[in-house]
């Protein structure tokens, strides 16, 4: 017996113990289908076009920049000796970091039984996939001769050459490609029941055919749900070590080398925390306007925003701790090169970059300690953008500031990006938003079946779920009957 049950009735929950509902206004499963699927049906709203047109223009600029760079060479970028890695790798790490929130929300929060994740996981997973696509462009093109990219994969060829697996760059190839594949599969498997919802509502033959094809003939059979839920649990279980390993391995690209400022053991956890921090920033940036424009305030509630602000605060503080620990170790190590690298960050020619990073990543998120600020969507929105500005500068600090003054002072130079660098980066935003807008227009951006599952209507032990007072059997007695 878990709770005292009055004779013939449900246990009475005291007012102060009542939980804030996950879906506001006691919405029914039918309402959830109609509202979420409704975003993909009917007339395209004007704001969608207003967002889509600039996005596709930017995406076209990206394409033009890639063609120009590939046909001319990496000399069109600002990279020079000794700053041989710059915006290419900054943007790669930045985008892949953003991608981490999606898998964190879908996998780790699933294992932790954080049921609020259902309101935001689909959009966050889509964000992950598109961010990893944007990320993947940079390492592929930074090699210069992109037609040799297949050298990265262990493909048997007439050359009889194999990749060199002792290099962290090879580990990265495996980590990022596995991450993309597993994230895509996870997202798709989550979509299958919702594609069946779309199929069953489809008004035109073509929609019925396409949604029907991709929903794989899903019927909602409980025998299927049983296997499906197990597969979903396992995917969450394997995605958790995956998401932690991917940014760890990205950090090893730096940490395994001997450059002062890169060669530190704190990098893997510090990169993972930063990735989650920036990913939650991007989720907030995307969902704060979308919940309003798509009228999803009852599904993506203020509680969701509140929790995500708290995660941002927590991860931002972990990142701040890592920054301070880096400084301490640089001093404590006694290595003059380490010390110089960090003093050069703080008061070298790029000190403005270092202090932008510190301000946006460490000081700014501290405002989320206050409930009043977490409830003000304008402030949260602006902060969420600044978080990603700060995280971009973190990678700038790590890559450019560590490289631009190497061991030989005659090499020192001040790095500046070229217009091609800047336009390629802006172009990836175009690609990202184009894909995201297409996704939210054609696929359910909220996990319909999962959100239904966390309402009281889905629980056979509640009045909303159909339980009758006199029928209620305490759980331990139910075991005996079954």
């Amino acid at each position, binding site marked *: 017996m878990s709770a005292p049950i009055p004779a013939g009735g449900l246990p009475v929950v005291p007012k102060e113990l009542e939980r804030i509902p996950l879906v506001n206004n006691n919405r*029914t*499963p*039918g309402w959830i*289908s109609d509202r979420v699927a409704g975003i993909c049906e009917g007339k395209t709203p004007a704001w969608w076009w207003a967002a889509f047109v600039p996005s596709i223009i930017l995406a076209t600029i990206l394409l033009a920049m890639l063609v120009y760079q590939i046909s001319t060479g990496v000399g069109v970028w600002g990279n020079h000796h000794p700053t041989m890695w710059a915006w290419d790798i900054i943007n790669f790490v930045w985008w892949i970091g953003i991608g981490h929130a999606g898998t964190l929300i879908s996998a780790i929060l699933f294992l932790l039984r954080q049921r609020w994740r259902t309101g935001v996981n689909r959009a966050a997973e889509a964000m992950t996939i598109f961010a990893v696509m944007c990320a993947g462009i940079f390492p592929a093109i930074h090699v210069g001769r992109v037609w040799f990219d297949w050298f990265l994969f*262990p493909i048997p060829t007439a050359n*009889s*050459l*194999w*990749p*060199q*697996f*002792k290099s962290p760059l090879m*580990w990265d190839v*495996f*980590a990022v490609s*596995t991450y993309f594949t*597993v994230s895509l*599969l996870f997202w798709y498997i989550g979509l299958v*029941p919702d594609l069946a*919802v779309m*199929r*069953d509502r489809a008004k035109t033959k073509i929609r019925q055919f396409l949604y029907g094809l991709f929903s*794989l*003939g*899903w*019927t*909602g*059979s*409980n*025998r*299927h749900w*049983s*296997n*499906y*839920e*197990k*597969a979903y649990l*396992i*995917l969450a279980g*394997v*995605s958790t*070590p*995956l998401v932690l*390993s991917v940014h760890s*391995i990205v950090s*090893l690209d730096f940490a395994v080398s001997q450059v002062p400022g890169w060669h530190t053991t704190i990098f893997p956890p510090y990169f993972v925390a930063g990735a989650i921090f920036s990913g939650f920033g991007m989720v907030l940036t995307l969902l704060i306007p979308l919940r309003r424009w798509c009228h999803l305030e009852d599904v993506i509630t203020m509680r969701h925003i509140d929790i995500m602000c708290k995660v941002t605060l927590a991860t931002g503080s972990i990142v701040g701790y890592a920054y301070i620990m880096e400084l301490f170790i640089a001093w404590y190590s006694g290595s003059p090169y380490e010390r110089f690298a960090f003093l050069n960050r703080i008061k070298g020619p790029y000190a403005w970059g270092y202090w932008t990073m510190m301000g946006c990543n460490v000081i700014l998120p501290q405002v989320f300690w206050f409930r009043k600020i977490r409830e003000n969507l304008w402030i949260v929105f602006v902060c969420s953008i600044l978080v990603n500005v700060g995280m971009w500068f973190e990678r700038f600090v790590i890559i450019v500031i560590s490289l631009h003054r190497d061991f030989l002072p005659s090499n020192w130079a001040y790095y500046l990006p070229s217009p091609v660098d800047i336009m390629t980066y802006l172009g990836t935003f175009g690609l990202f938003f184009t894909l995201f807008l297409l996704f939210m227009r054609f696929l359910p951006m909220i996990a319909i*079946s999962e959100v*239904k*599952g966390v309402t009281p*209507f*889905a*629980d*056979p*032990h509640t009045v909303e*779920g*159909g*339980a*009758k007072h006199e*029928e209620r059997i305490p759980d331990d007695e139910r075991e005996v009957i*079954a």
Partner: protein
Amino acid sequence: MNGTSKIHGIMAEFTTPAGAMHAAEKVRDAGFRKWDVFTPFPVHGMDKAMGLKNSRVGWFSFIGGVTGYTTGMLMIWWMNAVDYTIVIGGKPMFSPFGAFPPSYELTILFSAFGAIGGMLFLNRLPRLHHPLLKNKRFALATHDRYFVVIETADPKYNEVETKKLLEAAGSKRIELVEE
């Protein structure tokens, strides 16, 4: 709707998960084999109400993971220490530590393939056609209704008795589904 069409089964509609779950308990206790409950989301407790065993997807995933790790380690050992040896910074030709990160990623990749492939195999998906998907009313199974379907192929199936059982379970709307 001609007389020659075969009947796939009998379909009872419920408006709440509790209704469908109690019906499932009755159908299970009556000893039916070829039957199912269709819900818009997984209803917790339904597996027990239907008498289903733990899903076997885990085995597929496990085999996938073992395959992935073994493949990674063997591949790297063979490529870097047997087929094309090259000294890198005086390191050993093969070291399990250097080979671990790619093998780890392959473990995850293959166990994900195993989980998804196993789920689709056990569910016999994808399938392009299902008798229930032709039924107009059944479209609500992905919306907000709960259906219990007993197939005619079940040895215990009897049009009158089975209908009575489902009525007694509380369904207000029962119909026959064509093949």
